[in-house]
């Protein structure tokens, strides 16, 4: 049984999620929050395996809730619920600890599969996000070494993802098991999160030294 919590302010979306998950016997909705405040209480209370979280809440940013959830329940997976999965939002979410995203329209029908997939260890990614990750994690002239650099295989996978190949096609091209491309993506997300955390510490320290005025 996968315990799932939802933070989403649009009732229509909640409705569709309930409808989509209603038929799944292995997924159980444990809690629903419709604002940042409720969401905060939900995160503090915990007791979920997967958190579906909207970013644009009327009283706060979902990013902060994702960060809090990653910190307090690192064993749980966070999936961002978004309309466009535009890269800045997804990457900010991944930096905060999200492991996947769900598009609010057609993919909601398949959200049960997305939840199962993320528990199996696989994450979705879009080519533009893959490209951004390549730019961030394989810089031509890194200002300083990354705490968690990409492995050669991860780099290859990201390159193919950025060129628009599907998981199945990549698995075929690189002779991987079908499920492992998603696993690579989840691992890359984790590395981005770790790097951005150490980067934040580094930048904070730096600013502490440099900002004299």
């Amino acid at each position: 049984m996968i315990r799932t919590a939802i933070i989403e302010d649009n009732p229509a979306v909640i409705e569709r999620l309930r409808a989509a998950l209603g038929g799944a016997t292995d997924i159980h909705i444990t809690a629903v929050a419709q604002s940042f405040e409720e969401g905060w209480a939900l995160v503090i209370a915990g007791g979920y395996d997967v958190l579906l979280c909207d970013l644009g809440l009327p009283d706060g940013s979902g990013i902060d809730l994702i960060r809090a959830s990653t910190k307090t329940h690192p064993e749980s997976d966070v999936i961002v619920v978004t309309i466009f999965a535009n890269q800045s939002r997804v990457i900010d979410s991944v930096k905060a600890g999200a492991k996947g995203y769900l598009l609010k329209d057609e993919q909601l029908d398949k959200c049960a599969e997305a939840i199962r997939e993320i528990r199996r260890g696989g994450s979705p990614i879009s080519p533009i996000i893959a490209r951004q990750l390549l730019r961030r994690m394989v810089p031509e002239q890194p200002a300083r070494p990354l705490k968690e650099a990409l492995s050669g295989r991860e780099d290859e996978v990201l390159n193919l993802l950025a060129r628009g190949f599907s998981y199945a096609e990549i698995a075929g091209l690189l002779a991987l098991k079908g499920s492992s491309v998603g696993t690579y993506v989840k691992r890359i997300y984790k590395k981005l999160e770790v790097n951005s955390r150490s980067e934040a510490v580094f930048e904070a320290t730096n600013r502490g030294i440099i900002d004299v005025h």
Partner: protein
Amino acid sequence: MSIKAGCRSFLLCVSLLILTAFPVQARSVQQLRSGEFIYSEQRTIPDKGWQRQDLPFHDFFDVDKSVSQRRNTLWGRFQFRAAQSPEEPTALLMDYTTERFIVYLNGVEIFRNFSDPTARTFASFAPAIVPLTLEHMRAGNNVIDVRFESDSGWCLGVGHVSVGPEKLLRTTYDRQYLLQFLGPQVINGVIAALTLCAFLFWTRRRQERSFFWLTIVGVLWWIRNLHYSAVDPPIGPVLMWESTIYTLFGLISAFFGFTLTVFDVANRRKWIAFFVGLGGAMIALRFVLHWFGMSDLASYLFVVPMTLTLVVICARAVFDKLSVENIVMLLATTIAISFSFHDFGWLGNAWEGAGFQIQPYASLIVYSAFLFTIGRRFLGALDTVENMNQVLAQRIAEADSGLRASEAARRDLEISQAVSEERERLMMEIHDGIGSNLITALSAAERRQAAPETIAILRQSITDLKIAVDSLEPIEGSVVSLLANLRHRLEPELQRAGLSFDWRVMEAPDLPWLDAVGALHVLRILQEAISNILSHSDADTIIVECGPLQHDGREGISIIIRDEGRGFDPSLPTAGKGIANMTTRAKSLHGMLICKSGIGEGTAVRLWLPVEYLENIQSVEA
């Protein structure tokens, strides 16, 4: 100039100097080896008491110098043999005589170098030539008596004495006059000029202490060299001699000051103070000895260990660093000491040597060497400063360009940040506004089981909005990313329609000109091509190819979207609208679009985009 060549030419100069200094011996010239001497104030030639002494004969060191027992007159007697009938003019040549002398030939006075008995001619270093009058010459043995007078009383004596044909002796005289009298004068003039330079330099750069010491060395050496060429010193011969002697001690101390400063030895100030003190002690010692009427030889003996110490200091410097300056310093010090040693021994009658005092020459050599050493160092320092200036200028230029670059980058960053903030605001607006509403509408339509057309239009609107949002994503001109994301967007729709992609996308160059407007054009072209396939082709696979392609010799990328479906007749007017639309968009991107189709042949849309715009195309477009 290499060190070796420098040393060689230096040694050559020295040996030439020494060689020319030796008096040239003519065969018919008789150089007298000894003479008879007597100290006597007598006005006439003494009869007895003569003592044989080797020539040169001087009483510089081992005579009693107390004022009370001063001996002011020395008689010398020299004998030579003349030819049976001497017809050639004959002369007597003497060097290192004293202030006043009278020459007698066979008991008759034939020459005196003064008319006033109180004259204090000091030119003892100038040789003296006296023609021997033929009428007083005798065939066979001849006697020359010379009465030497001096006010100081302890530098009586004579150097070399020769008799011979005047013509030959005149040549010797000229050479000696040049080397022993005129030479030191010229050298002292040069030293004065160099010292003035060193002094002026030091007044401008007080921190250059080596120039201070060089000035002191120069001044003292100039004073000391005066006695070689002074004729009638205003301070009188006695004081002249005293100053010459005392200057030596000061000079040695100044040598130490200079050498220790140049080599910058540890505890330099203490050592200099020590050696200056030692110089003072020698002056005091000599003064005391002189006061008590004792020989001042002891005070000179101090000079030996001191000068040897100087050589050791220089040798150590050479050992530490084999530089031209250090070698020159060592050579100069060695020359100064060996020349002094030569003169000391010559004055003390220990050896004949060059036959005259060579120290004035040493002074020029050494002074030039010192000047060379610090001049070279100074030039080296100038070079360093110049290099440093160059390095600094370069660093400033680098820093300047770095600053400009970072300033430009900062401005660019500000602009791009403003753009991205604005984009983010728009995105948020679309996401939380239109997007959210569309999603709600779609949910409502689905729940109420609205007409399939309504649902389809809502889905289409959401897809269009997504594509528009994608065109705003910062992809830095990567058409491959656009293409890839389009697949990502359209895949669910295609799957619903039972189609799949045959994805053949290769790496392709980025298009630096591709902005959001361009990106949207590209996306709309591709979307149109794909949706044509969806609606009309009846195919089950969409083949997408992308890669670099040159067109008319220009770099570019090619995107092909094709199917193997039923195709259409391009000549039919209904087929034209969508293609015309795509072509217009491609043109506005400075690209090309070709659509190929035929009934039963499938359709292929080929889009070519340049990596860089051509200026002339732009102007034609304008």
